[in-house]
């Protein structure tokens, strides 16, 4: 129940993000969501795309450093406390969350992508709560 996230190393330079996104979309790959974690000198761009393997390949050809990582895309219903419930359950299972960011997937509620230090267990916990997770095809 994982989806493939494409993480891309980006220097903090004007126009750089544009170049990277152009490379992805220019090859007919749809960007489903984008999130940027930034530091002083560089950023890590995290993308969910329609064809992660192809995106990885075209970036590599352009000499852009990227990497495919498994993340979990979780649907969070529009109700008070629903995100907290998921986080609480993961925490109770002794799993640490490495990062989390909001997704803009079509559908009823909101959704998030997350990476934890025990992905299998995280899927189990979320599954047992009856909370929906997206598959790669659903993106």
């Amino acid at each position, binding site marked *: 129940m994982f989806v493939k*996230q494409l*993480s891309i*190393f*980006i*220097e903090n330079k004007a126009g*750089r993000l544009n170049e990277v996104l152009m490379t992805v979309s220019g090859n007919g790959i749809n960007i489903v969501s984008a999130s940027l*974690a930034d*530091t002083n*000198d*560089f950023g*890590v761009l*995290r993308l969910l795309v329609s064809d992660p393997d192809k995106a990885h390949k075209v970036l*590599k050809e352009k*000499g*852009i*450093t*990227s*990497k495919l*990582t498994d993340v979990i895309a979780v649907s969070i219903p529009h109700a008070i406390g629903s995100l907290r419930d998921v986080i609480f359950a993961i925490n109770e299972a002794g799993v640490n969350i*490495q*990062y989390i960011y909001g997704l803009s997937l079509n559908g009823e509620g909101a959704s998030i992508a997350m*990476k934890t230090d025990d992905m299998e267990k995280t899927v189990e916990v979320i599954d047992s709560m009856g909370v929906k997770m997206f598959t790669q095809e659903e993106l």
Partner: protein
Amino acid sequence: MIWNKSKECMSRDELVALQGKRLAKIVDRVYHNVPYYREKMQEMGLEPGDINGIEDVEKLPFTTYEDLNKNYPFGLAAVPRSELVRVHASSGTTGKPKVAVYTRRDIDIWAECAARCLAMAGVTRDDVIQVGYGYGLFTGGLGAHYGAEKLGALVLPMSAGNTRKLIDMMIDMDVTTIACTPSYLLHVAEDLQKEGLIDKIKLKYAICGAEPWTDEMRNKMEELLHIKAYDIYGLTEICGPGVGTDCQYHNGLHIWEDHFLPEIIDPVTQKQLPAGETGELVITTLTKEGMPLLRYRTKDLTSLKYEQCQCGRTTARIQRFKGRTDDMLIIRGVNVFPSQIEAALLTIDGTTPHYMIVVDRVDNEDTFEVQVEVEEKFFSDEVRELEKLTKTIHNKLKVALGLNVKVKLVEPNALPHSDGKTKHVTDNRKLYN
């Protein structure tokens, strides 16, 4: 003031005769006491009796860093271990540091040479001197210290680093002289100016060395501090600060030829070049006991001037340095070789990433940045992993170089890759012109 007139102002004929006598003696000594030199000379079919004057110096073998490395640590010592009293060292290109060993008499001669340099700047026994070079294996601190004591000046062994204490004591103890790297002195000068303390100091002279510097830097420190600043030259292998210094006419560095025989060679053909031509400075130690060196290749590019100086001294003068024959960088007085950085990066994951060293001088202080390309195998989707990588590189470089280095992760291909020899250094300091 001239500290040792009979030696510093000797006629050229007398000097050449003295050098010839000393050269013959030192060659005889290394031939009999240093197996490495004996073998080298025997291979060349050379005997001590073949060297009768300085015109014969060209017959002798060169000594290079590789020779020092092969003989690390004491292989080139010409006296029994019990005669040695001091070790100094600085970083080598690869492998072992450059080590020099000294007997008591070597230390005395070094102090004499450093005293001559200080006296040339005007320092006397009535002066109070702060030594702001590092004390330790680096020759700067102890070299300047012994010279100043020989002169009879009052010495404050500050070492490097604590600017606050240096400034406070400079004011409290009426310090008249400072010996430190030129970039550090400019840093001190700016602090003094910022704090409005320039009127409170009694500083008259600065003796600066351990890194190349420019006339602009001299003008700036002289103007800011109302002092006279002098350039001092030395290298660990020969003896540290005191090999030579410039006089009030700033017409090159007077080299103490009664102890050090200088030559300029073409680094490619290895042939001596005529006076005035630029090439690699080669030095033979004429009086060293602990570790005499024949024709040591300094890798510094310069020329020599032999005309008598207006100051009255007759010694040859080393002209402005034009660069190096190798890729050594001097950062805040510390010798750094790109190969050391490469070796440190190699320990991170067994392969060397592409890297670039960017050196600059900002507000008169050397900045040193190592840019490392993030290839897929170093890359992580987690920022903290990348920050950890930055920190690991920083720590490894700190251990390897003894310097705090700014590490910056950059994208692949951000750095110029060329066929053949990749350029690894961008030095924006413009120290050689």
